[in-house]
């Protein structure tokens, strides 16, 4: 239960010089070190690395944020916002952790069955 990184075999790394604008769908763990604008719809774990910048709505099973995220995030399992993270947006998940030192501006909703991010306000 520590934060030791489990290096699973199938983790795609979206490298630091990559920039993507549009819609990303995936079913395998991905670590984002580059910049993504648009939307991410994901079935597994998304890690926004310390160099990563995401300007998008993110949906996934699990989201770990070490970098910058601007946009709403919703996860079926959990969202972790680490010390180095800068987050602006609402997060929604059954389990949310925010480490002291993180920069977070937005709302937190903890629901046992977090559905897809509803943009209704």
């Amino acid at each position, binding site marked *: 239960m520590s934060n030791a990184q489990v290096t699973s075999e*199938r983790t*795609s*790394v*979206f*490298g*630091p*010089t*990559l*920039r*993507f*604008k*549009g*819609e*990303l*769908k*995936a*079913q*395998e763990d*991905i670590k984002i070190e*580059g910049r993504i604008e*648009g939307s991410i719809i994901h079935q597994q774990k998304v890690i926004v690395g310390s160099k990563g910048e995401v300007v998008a709505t993110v949906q996934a099973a699990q989201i770990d944020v070490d970098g910058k995220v601007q946009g709403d995030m919703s996860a079926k399992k959990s969202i972790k916002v680490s010390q180095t993270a800068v987050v602006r947006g609402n997060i929604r998940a059954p389990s949310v952790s925010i480490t002291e030192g993180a920069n977070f501006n937005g709302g937190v909703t903890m629901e046992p069955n977090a559905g897809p991010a509803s943009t209704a306000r």
Partner: protein
Amino acid sequence: MNKTFGDTKLAPPAPAAQPASNTTCVLGPTLHFKGELYGEEDLEFQGQLEGTIEHTRSLSIGKEGGVTGNIRAKFVIVEGRVEGDIYATESVSIRQTAKVVGNVFAPRVGIADGAQFSGRIDMNHKQAQTARPATIPVTLSEPAAEKLLTKQA
């Protein structure tokens, strides 16, 4: 100093030949991109992409990879499916397992026996060379334009 020693006629390095380092980034087979992708590092693409890729280094479309749209890069290696034009400043290599529908613009082009290719090949295309510097002024001009707009407003 020894830079010219035999490196000019060698084929572009295959991604498999490189040691597993952080420099080659692999995008896995379940990834579906829809939009524009830019990159400045060696990339092995195994996913699906609808849209355009602009790349300044080596790009390989893996066996499971598929791209519908145009590709610009330095080196392009195709082992998967590409529907669209490929522009490379150095070379394009179409491997045995590849299926390519589209035109290829590069100074050097290789098509392996067994590959499926339908399209045109242009080895004297100038646009491939000029495409790369053109991206720099675009990124520079955006903040400049913003400054101009805010000053006038």
